[in-house]
């Protein structure tokens, strides 16, 4: 009797798990779209910054989605972990925190932590050229050689050197390498 009960129970649990798989994967896919990110008003400013940045469109003129940089590209343990962690964090700030007063310095650190090199390298395969196919500067080439381990070595990831590539808070606008991005943002703000 006891054996029978447990086997029935096992079957029920198995069925529930099997039913949950499509539900979870569907909801994961739906909550990874740019549209879903934009359903929270605090993310609107990040979208408007992205639209003015050099990462607004890829080389096929397709708009770049949030998830292309902020979530691991391939499905796996890492993907689920990042999705759960960042999602739970976003929910907590949206419902319990103060979404109108975000600490963008802290956010930068968190965002950099979860942007993997593979996400960057999906588009930037050849590190001796930029996305338009132009050769990069001599210093840039040396830095990338060190990153690839050809000439020297560095522990830095892509985001260790390349920051403010898609979002630019006020306090980072003063850097010379952000001049163009800051100007575009300023022009956009004047028009509004």
């Amino acid at each position, binding site marked *: 009797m006891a054996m029978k009960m447990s086997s029935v129970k096992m079957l029920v649990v198995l069925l529930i798990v099997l039913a949950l798989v499509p539900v979870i994967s569907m909801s994961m896919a739906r909550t990874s779209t740019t549209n879903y990110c934009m359903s929270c008003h605090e993310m609107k400013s990040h979208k408007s910054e992205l639209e003015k940045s050099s990462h607004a469109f890829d080389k096929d003129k397709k708009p770049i989605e949030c998830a292309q940089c902020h979530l691991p590209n391939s499905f796996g343990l*890492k993907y689920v*972990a990042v999705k759960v962690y960042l999602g739970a964090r976003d929910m907590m700030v949206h419902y319990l925190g103060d979404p109108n007063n975000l600490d963008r310095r802290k956010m930068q650190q968190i965002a*950099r*932590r979860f942007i993997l090199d593979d996400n960057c390298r999906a588009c930037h395969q050849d590190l001796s050229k930029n996305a338009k196919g132009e050769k990069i500067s001599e210093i840039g080439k040396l830095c990338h050689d060190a990153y690839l381990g050809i000439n020297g070595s*560095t522990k830095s990831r892509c985001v260790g050197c390349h920051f403010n590539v898609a979002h630019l808070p006020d306090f980072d606008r003063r850097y010379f390498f952000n001049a163009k991005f800051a100007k575009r943002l300023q022009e956009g703000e004047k028009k509004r």
Partner: protein
Amino acid sequence: MKLGFLGATEGGRIGKWPIIILAGMVIAVVAFLTYINVAFPRVKCEYAKHLKSPDTASDCYACHLKATPKVAQDWYESKHGVMLVKCFVCHGQPDGKGSVPYAVNPDVNTTCRKCHDPSIKKMEKKYGLKLECNSCHPFHQNSIHHKAYVKPVAKRKI
């Protein structure tokens, strides 16, 4: 065995299942956070170990802008930042070769006095120097902005 509210058995004692489920959830959360910390290490300065291996010290500001953004920004907006009194002037260098000893909290007599000796002497004459300079004059803060000079020590009349 019939389970009642929240898994309590008929005798009123809590059954084993709620405890097992709770323990499982706690273990799952701990395992998840451990995995996150191992797979995605916090963004640290490339030479974060410069305290242990001093030869790897590099451009302080470039790293600390990312590693400790608040301190870096406070310095940038402060008088010391505006006058470009760089980190090593007060904090020394990790390899110990700077003109002042390497310290997170610089000593008044070896650092502040190098530039501010006349003012420190004046303050000593007037009030008697009891505390570190920093308890009234923040090194890393703009006195016009922020909360500089609101420390209770600074407002106390002697």
